[in-house]
């Protein structure tokens, strides 16, 4: 079995386990490459029909290409879409001038409200272990407590595909079927499966986006990679150093930490 098939089967097993264990479950879908891969794996796990809702957290400041791609996929894959949006904060004029407050209101709070409204017990997320340092500590099934917080020092052991389906007090479990994938695996899989992604990932005028979000807070990186093949080649040939060079700057990193403490994914 080749590497990608191995990764795929492990993810499908975890997705099926989580669907078996929880009645109220949904997948979080940002339309980015990782969570789109996650949705595709759900399609495969359930033979062409995702049997639970997909949640799109809409800050209303996303790129138009993202909304277009979202609607295209919903239509094509017949997805049950839930849009989580904090209309109250938006009406009060919340915007990206203050990043921390804005993310907290438009992402974290919107998600909290959505979980409360639908009573979700579990959420599937497309995070990877190689994305953020702290994520190296994540488990496949990771409980979040009532305050949305994550007690990573004291997580349940996870052995041999036996996942702790629930602890007693937490509000919900986050399930991470892509935890063992790396960035380059995702792109190779996208290539192998012939998956479509938001066009913003591909270089135009010497620039492309490596991650997607709000128009105000995403900066493109210099790149000539205009196809999936070229992106893979770019990741393969660029030394790790170059990849790291594109990491968020210090200030941004600090924001991330704060956001995480507040329960953002």
């Amino acid at each position, binding site marked *: *079995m080749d590497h990608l098939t191995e990764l795929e*089967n492990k993810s499908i*097993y975890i997705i099926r386990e989580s669907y078996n264990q929880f009645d109220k479950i949904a997948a979080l879908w940002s339309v980015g490459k990782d969570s789109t891969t996650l949705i595709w794996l759900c399609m495969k796990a359930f033979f062409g029909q995702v049997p639970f809702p997909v949640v799109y957290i809409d800050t209303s400041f996303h790129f138009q290409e993202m909304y277009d791609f979202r609607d295209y996929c919903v239509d094509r894959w017949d997805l049950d879409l839930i849009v989580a949006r904090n209309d109250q904060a938006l009406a009060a004029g919340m915007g990206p001038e203050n990043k921390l407050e804005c993310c907290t209101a438009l992402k974290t709070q919107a998600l909290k409200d959505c979980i409360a409204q639908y009573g979700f017990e579990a959420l599937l997320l497309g995070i990877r272990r190689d994305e*953020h340092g702290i994520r190296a500590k994540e*488990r496949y099934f990771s409980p979040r407590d009532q305050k949305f917080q994550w007690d990573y020092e004291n997580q349940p052991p996870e*052995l041999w595909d036996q996942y702790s389906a629930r602890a007693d007090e937490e509000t919900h479990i986050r399930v991470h079927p892509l935890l063992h994938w790396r960035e380059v695996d995702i792109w190779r899989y996208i290539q192998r499966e012939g998956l479509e992604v938001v066009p913003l990932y591909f270089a135009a005028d010497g620039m492309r986006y490596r991650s997607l979000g709000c128009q105000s807070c995403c900066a493109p990186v210099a790149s000539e990679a205009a196809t999936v093949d070229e992106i893979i080649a770019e990741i393969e040939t660029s030394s*790790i150093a170059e990849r790291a060079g594109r*990491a968020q700057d210090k200030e941004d990193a600090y924001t991330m930490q704060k956001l995480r403490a507040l329960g953002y994914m």
Partner: protein
Amino acid sequence: MQPESLSFVLVGHVDHGKSTLIGRLLHDTNSLPDGKMEEIQEAARAEGRELEFGYIVDHLREERERGVTIDTAQTFFSSDTRDYVIIDAPGHKQFIKNMITGASQAEAAVLICSAAEGVQEQTRRHAYVIHMLGLDQVLVLYNKMDMVDYSEERFREVRRELREFLARLGIRPTLEVPISASRGDNVATRSLNMPWYDGPTALTALDKFRKIPPATEKALRFPVQDVYHVDGVELTAGRVESGILRKGQTLRFMPGGRALAVKEIRQYLSEGLPQAEAGECVGLALDGDAPRRGRVGCPADDAPQPTRRFQATIFWLSPLPFEPDRGELTFKCATQEEPCRIAALRRRIDSGTLESLDAEDGRLMETEVGEVLLETDEPVVLESFYDVQELGRFVLLRGHDVVAGGIVTHTAGDAAPAHHETIS
């Protein structure tokens, strides 16, 4: 081309040099980002510390604690032949839960033991865990050779002691390399300080680990995970845990033994698969009502006898001890789940020394190992861990918490344990 990727867990007593080794490997394989080394040097100078290789990892870890985004380098590196994932396991006793979680996802283990300090408690405990998890590829690194004047005699002395302990567990190290992680001797480059050693460096020794092939040559076992209805067809979903499943074959679903023919093997977008191998997740169209979750599909002529009483070795993971009169446990193996109890504690072992402890009161404390007789309410389908790992390993839950990991040593309750299964 997808390069091969292999994951190994790095274990050893605290302070024997794990961080230093990781720092050294990252540095010597050029896996540290440009500028990172300078940044770290700068930070060390500012703190008035001498730059050590372990500091690289401390620095990265500290960034990690602060939640600062860092690159993948700390856990991923590449040799000339493949990519590696290091599963780093803290050496402190209280982290044994994390160590086991990490080690259960690894394909091989690297055990580091300081030639200066010699074999210590966590060296032994970690070796025990490696043994219990069935990791049979073990590279032993004897570190800090610079502190013992690169002495061949000292190397042999510590090696003799550790070999003897490992032999009691049935572990034969794949390779044993004397190194100095801080100076770099025999890590990625051959040392001139140990002319008496002519074996491989640590890095070439890693390249000798095999990828573990899926268990295709074993008997077919297909535990049912769930049942889906797709376009009016009932699909029995599951993962082939061992063996090969073929279209047209008749499966017996145990316990119960209902025989059903496999009409079709499906994956999304490939409906008519001729077969599915160990490791593959598939859906089966069967010629009868789908069996429920937890039933195990087996070849009609090679179905195991389900059992309610069996022998096992368990590793207690919870800070709350096992007490015989404190409630029921739940047994989980593959997709099977059954209430169970420990009918007898035959031996209680200190995993750090392998000494037998007093088992009189039937209690088991965190990190202790028990040789037990387990009894489930209803029969379950098992294999000896030494035959089919996938159906020979399990966890025990108390309430919702995983409190122990275990392996089946004998599927019958009364048979005498085979020789290699007990620790002498």
